[in-house]
């Protein structure tokens, strides 16, 4: 409980709430498009670079298990999401698989918020986690699209291309590669730009995210309780699964909780674009509302501290 409150009163969460407030009071506050895009390029590239620097210092075989587990989780989560959304939330096949693609992928901001919360809670995560983000982005979307049993034009192949060379994965992988090739010493000179101000920039980003999410609140109200409950249950279930698996493959308690947050999160940048191209008949009103209107704030406010608490407990329970 204390962890929960502790987590809520942080610059990141408050900036998100401030953004939402801006919409509710109809402020004319507006982050220009170009700035928003510039910030998101910065964040993704910086996440990659930071992960790459860490990878340069990690023996490769320490990565094998976590990467394997992450791929596995990326395959499982869209399946559970699809069936829950189809049966419990009563979405049709197309909309269920479209939304499942989002749950199969990962939200970079949730990831970063989790990294940060873990650090604040004295449970720092492994430095190579950003590599897992890159790994988790793709398989879930592919699996989910298979469920749709239909897709436009180039279909899954086109969506796959869209994904892999899409800017978020491209920047993440690019950053990882540069960071790993250069290593900590050579990266020192870019640290004052990519590492030190990172969290402040993230605050600005969350201001914007709050504004965008607030636009979805009306949609959330219309969505009906079944959708809302699904949008909370899925991250919880996936998150616990991720945390548990994280422990099993030997991650630190912080790392396991962060893996939980990643697995529990729903993408709202890479996935929507890919899904829109592959399944144009699916309603963005459903998948964006689920991922950005419900699951994202849920994880930010509740999920992350819960995964951290569970992970701490698991540590003392597991051998």
């Amino acid at each position: 409980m204390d962890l929960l409150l502790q987590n809520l009163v942080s610059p990141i969460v408050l900036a998100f709430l401030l953004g939402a407030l801006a919409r509710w009071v109809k402020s004319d506050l507006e982050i220009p498009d170009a700035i928003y895009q510039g910030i998101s390029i910065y964040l993704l590239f910086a996440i990659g670079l930071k992960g790459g620097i860490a990878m340069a210092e990690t023996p490769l075989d320490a990565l094998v298990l976590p990467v394997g587990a992450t791929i596995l989780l990326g395959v499982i989560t869209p399946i559970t999401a699809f069936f829950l959304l189809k049966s419990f939330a009563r979405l049709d096949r197309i909309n269920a698989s479209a939304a499942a693609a989002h749950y199969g992928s990962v939200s970079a901001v949730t990831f970063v918020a989790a990294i940060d919360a873990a650090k604040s809670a004295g449970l720092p995560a492994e430095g190579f986690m950003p590599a897992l983000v890159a790994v988790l982005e793709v398989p879930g979307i592919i699996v989910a699209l298979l469920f749709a049993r239909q897709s436009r034009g180039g279909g899954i192949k086109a969506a796959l291309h869209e994904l892999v060379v899409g800017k978020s994965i491209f920047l993440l992988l690019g950053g990882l590669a540069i960071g790993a090739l250069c290593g900590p010493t050579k990266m020192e000179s870019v640290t004052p730009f990519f590492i030190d101000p990172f969290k402040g920039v993230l605050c600005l980003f969350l201001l914007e995210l709050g504004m965008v999410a607030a636009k979805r609140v009306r949609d959330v109200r219309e969505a009906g309780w079944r959708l809302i409950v699904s949008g909370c249950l899925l991250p919880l279930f996936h998150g616990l699964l991720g945390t548990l698996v994280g422990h099993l493959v030997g991650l630190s308690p912080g790392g396991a909780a962060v893996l939980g947050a990643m697995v529990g999160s729903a993408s709202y940048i890479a996935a929507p674009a890919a899904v829109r191209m592959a399944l144009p008949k699916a309603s963005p009103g459903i998948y964006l509302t689920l991922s950005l209107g419900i699951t994202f704030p849920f994880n930010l406010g509740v999920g992350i501290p819960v995964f951290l608490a569970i992970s701490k407990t698991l540590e003392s329970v597991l051998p």
Partner: protein
Amino acid sequence: MKVTLCKLTVISESLLREEIAELILRLGATGYTMTRVEGRGSRGRRASDFEGRNVKFEVIVSEETADAILEEVAERYFEDFAVIAWLTSAEVLRGNKFVKSSSALPSGEATGKPGPESEV
């Protein structure tokens, strides 16, 4: 020597930018001008509210090419995507600049003396 051509305008969610640009050039336009715009329409929201903007293509073309582009845009995108399009007429100098060398301007236009109907 002014001739009357068509100006085709296509507004689309920005995700389709590359596809539509390719379509326009493939069907015979010699160029296009693209503007980033914002919009409100019946569909209300776009795939990624983040990508934020729509794009607007303006294309100066002969009427046939305009119709061809309009038709393919309508067929491929009107049902599922936030795409609209319209035509107006436009008078240009150097009409041949806007017609690919393979095709030719219809005689009425090439003479610069279009009939009353096609005049603006």
